[in-house]
């Protein structure tokens, strides 16, 4: 029982970690606390519905469609909503992302109807038995793909020159501008990556459950994940995601399905009080 719960917790946690990673990339680059990350997850799920159920694309083409679509969404959000608000107070930026998710939710419900849609992909859906543990192949695929994406983006940030420029921009906007980095392009890229990672998470969540706008609430679990892990830290986001996934599954199967929220957000509150910079983050020194 415990092993079973831990497996599904880690598998779901990997997806949360992926979404949280996207969130952290956006936050690091543009200092925008993106409350619409949950809705970007939903967008991913519905891009998949569009490509697979509506347009009947072959799977490889559908994947490309989802990745390109989510990139475009991220870039458009940055150009039209985030860039005009740069340098404005925090509430304005937070609220614009909240308003954005209101609009996106309404538009998606207008197009696809308020009920959810079933999402079926050619990904394997069988069950493997490992001793007593039932391992759903879909969970396993989701976890593996998530880890591959995380590793891929980790390598991208560490090894490529664009990754270096992005890290430099996140570190200090002014220094990057002075060195001739086009900061806006870097920020747009960060939004594209954040949106793309959310969309990949959305495809799996949409298939594990059902593609509906209620996936937003699951996508929003990336928020506590990021804060618990440490907002400035990329590994922190992943570990935070795993932790949230495991806590959620443990609470849901041993206590009650509704009680997972209180454990996750309770932990968030404790972390905020004790270690506001998160498990892996760097302590921020206050300016006096």
């Amino acid at each position, binding site marked *: 029982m415990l092993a079973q719960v831990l497996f599904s917790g880690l598998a779901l946690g990997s997806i949360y970690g992926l979404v949280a990673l996207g969130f952290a990339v956006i936050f690091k680059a543009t200092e925008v606390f993106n409350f619409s990350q949950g809705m970007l997850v939903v967008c991913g799920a519905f891009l998949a519905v569009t490509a697979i159920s509506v347009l009947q694309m072959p799977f490889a083409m559908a994947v490309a469609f989802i990745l390109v679509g989510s990139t475009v969404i991220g870039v458009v959000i940055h150009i039209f909503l985030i860039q005009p608000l740069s340098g404005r107070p925090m509430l304005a930026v937070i609220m614009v992302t*909240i308003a954005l998710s*209101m609009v996106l939710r309404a538009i998606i419900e*207008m197009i696809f109807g308020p009920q959810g849609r079933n999402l079926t992909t050619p990904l394997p859906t069988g069950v493997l038995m490992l001793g007593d543990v039932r391992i759903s192949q879909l969970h396993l695929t989701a976890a593996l793909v998530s880890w591959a994406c995380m590793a891929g983006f980790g390598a991208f940030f560490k090894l490529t020159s664009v990754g270096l420029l992005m890290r430099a921009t996140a570190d200090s906007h002014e220094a990057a501008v002075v060195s001739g980095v086009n900061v806006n392009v870097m920020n747009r890229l960060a939004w594209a990556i954040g949106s793309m990672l959310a969309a990949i998470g959305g495809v799996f969540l949409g298939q594990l459950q059902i593609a509906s706008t209620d996936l937003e609430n699951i996508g929003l679990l990336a928020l*506590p994940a990021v*804060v618990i892990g440490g907002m400035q830290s990329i590994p922190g986001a992943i570990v935070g995601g795993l932790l949230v996934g495991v806590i959620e599954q443990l609470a849901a199967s041993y206590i009650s399905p509704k*009680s997972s929220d209180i454990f996750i957000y309770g932990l968030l509150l404790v972390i*905020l009080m004790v270690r*506001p910079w998160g498990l892996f983050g760097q302590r921020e020194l206050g300016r006096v």
Partner: protein
Amino acid sequence: MNSQNTDSKKFSTKWLWLILAAALACYLPFLLTDRSIFGVRLSNMQLLNLGLTQINLMLIAMLGSLSLNYLTGNAGLISIGHAAFYAVGAMTGAVAGTQWGWPFPLVLVLAGVVGAIAGLIAGLPSLRVRGLYFVLSTFAMHYIVSFSFLEYQFKFFDVVGVPYEPAKLGSFDINTPMRWYFLLLPLVILVYWGLKNTMSTREGRAMMAMRDHELATTSVGADVRILRLKAFAFSSAIASVAGAIYAFYMSNVNAESFGIQFAIQFIAMIIIGGMGSLNGALVGAALWLLLPSIIAGFASQVTESSGAIKFLLVDNRAQFVQVIFGSMVIVLLIFAPGGIVGIGAQIRNRMAANRKQS
């Protein structure tokens, strides 16, 4: 001599406006109940499809937006947990009103006290964390309160929700929209007037100074920690009373009534109306609560037509309203951070400048 003259003129016109507004406010419920003005019948569309129920809900929402505006606009503390205080008030109402059978006014007082205590507790993280981290702590608090509400609801009641007795003042039943209106209107005016006066006291000014520059405020001898807690307790007490009233007005609420959407709507209201302005909070709440019903009124006119208008107004009205509000928030944030009241002030200034020139 001249300036004194204009002053007294200004003074008398101000009173004239106030009396006119009071008369209008007293006449409004009769207009909306009888659907006629001085005996002349009005069509539904001439009344913009508004009923007294919407007006009452608007007045309750105004309590919430006023209190959030006090907290966010004046004290500079952002809270995504304002629905939680509504929930606290509703829970207090259920315990004291439904379970213990306390009279309605006492329940409201208790809701205020419990709300203040809850606000004090919720404000505690503000002693330790700032800015974004504090916003997150209110976000976490929201989920904790709504879980408690859910547990409470399922422990003592059922899945339908928590029922409330009809509200009574002594032996006087508050059972019609008209009676609610005349209970809520003075309450909103009282809160408005109270907050207006609070802002011009020493503490109120210190609070706004804290919003603008914390360190400078500390340096002139104001304890910002105490100020923050006070702002939080005061604001949540009002929100909690509003929550109890909301629960009694709806006569049945459940945990889903106070979701995160409920909290977000108050932030949207004060942004649409104008952050930091009491009138803005009122305008925002009015727009948020009345526009859907006005759009529904238009929708009933266009059932014959087809195409895009029918798609938006009839089939997807709820979503259409959300798109309007969402875009309104976005557009106002980008182009007019002062909200509708800010735009109004700008237009007034420009007109005054033009008048001076001519």
